[in-house]
């Protein structure tokens, strides 16, 4: 019998809630309260997440966020700023001691990205891993991921772009040199793609998450079982949202 992992589908949460849920599940998993967990989610309203080490003011145009109704939050993972709009975001939370995830960090990125690659295949999209933390289709990025490890538990979360609006993204993110902004936007348009751009039709969140579910099951030879957050996780989510992710101290710390 295959190992059973938990599958959570939590659509349409705020930026603070989404990051708080990932942390809550990580704590719950580290306490041995829940099995390895895969979560598929979306962001409502759209949001920018920045990497743990990034400077909020340096990376994000906060006035533009306000006027366009876009939220922002600092992640507990490193990496770069991401505009979360028309995408499926995944997270996987699993004990470091589980042999299905390599101990070596770079190898574990490759393995987990392998699940997304298999998922994309079920949407008839051929993609490949591009170290350190990207997945590409015809040399264009379709997915980016970030990982942290705490209390002997791995958390990796990442995007699968269902559609992408580069012009809107550049209204929200600051660029190092305004003079070359137009060229930069043109470059990024050449280097980023989405499921919609490749398959030429709109693929829904449910279709994408169905494909990703199979991808994770195949990659890890497991069965994903639909479930919900535990009472403890809901309580931890509220706590982390209140005490961390919604606070000025956290979001502006760099």
């Amino acid at each position: 019998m295959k190992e059973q992992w938990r599958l959570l589908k939590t659509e349409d949460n705020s930026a603070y809630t989404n990051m708080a849920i990932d942390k809550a599940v990580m704590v719950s998993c580290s306490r041995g309260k829940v099995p390895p967990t895969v979560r598929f989610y979306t962001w409502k309203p759209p949001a920018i997440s920045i990497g743990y080490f990034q400077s909020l003011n340096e990376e994000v145009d906060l006035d533009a966020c306000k006027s366009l109704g876009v939220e922002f939050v600092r992640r507990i993972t490193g990496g770069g700023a991401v505009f979360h709009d028309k995408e499926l975001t995944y997270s996987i939370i699993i004990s470091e001691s589980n042999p299905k995830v390599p101990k070596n960090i770079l190898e574990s990125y490759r393995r987990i990205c392998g699940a997304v690659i298999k998922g994309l295949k079920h949407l008839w999209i051929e993609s490949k891993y591009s170290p350190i933390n990207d997945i590409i289709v015809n040399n264009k990025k379709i997915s980016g991921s970030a990982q942290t490890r705490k209390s002997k538990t791995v958390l990796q979360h990442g995007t699968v772009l269902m559609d992408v609006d580069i012009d809107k993204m550049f209204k929200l993110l600051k660029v190092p040199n305004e003079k070359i902004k137009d060229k930069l936007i043109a470059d990024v348009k050449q280097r980023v793609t989405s499921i919609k751009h490749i398959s030429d039709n709109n693929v829904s969140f449910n279709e994408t998450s169905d494909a990703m579910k199979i991808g994770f099951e195949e990659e890890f030879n497991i069965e994903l079982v639909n479930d919900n957050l535990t009472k403890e996780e809901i309580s931890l989510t509220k706590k982390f949202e209140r005490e961390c992710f919604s606070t000025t101290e956290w979001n502006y710390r760099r």
Partner: protein
Amino acid sequence: MQSKSVYKVPNGKLLKIFLDYDSKNKLITNIHITGDFFAYPEESIDVMEKKLKDTLLTKKNLLEKINSVVKKYKIEFIGLDAEALVEGILRCME
């Protein structure tokens, strides 16, 4: 004196250093290490910033201090390394 550098680490990520330093004695008074790199454990970079205070701004001193923190806290970098961190810091003085 306040300064900032932006350094694309070869085959790595973008490092942005915000540095306050005593220009007379060439000592770090405050430093923020930012960017889209990965470092495990993440909190070790907060320690690194504290430990770098009062460090003499020479390649040798910076590398020694950074390597000692890396060793003590078993820091694993992805998209960054000690040499690149030194380079980013020294670029603040150019």
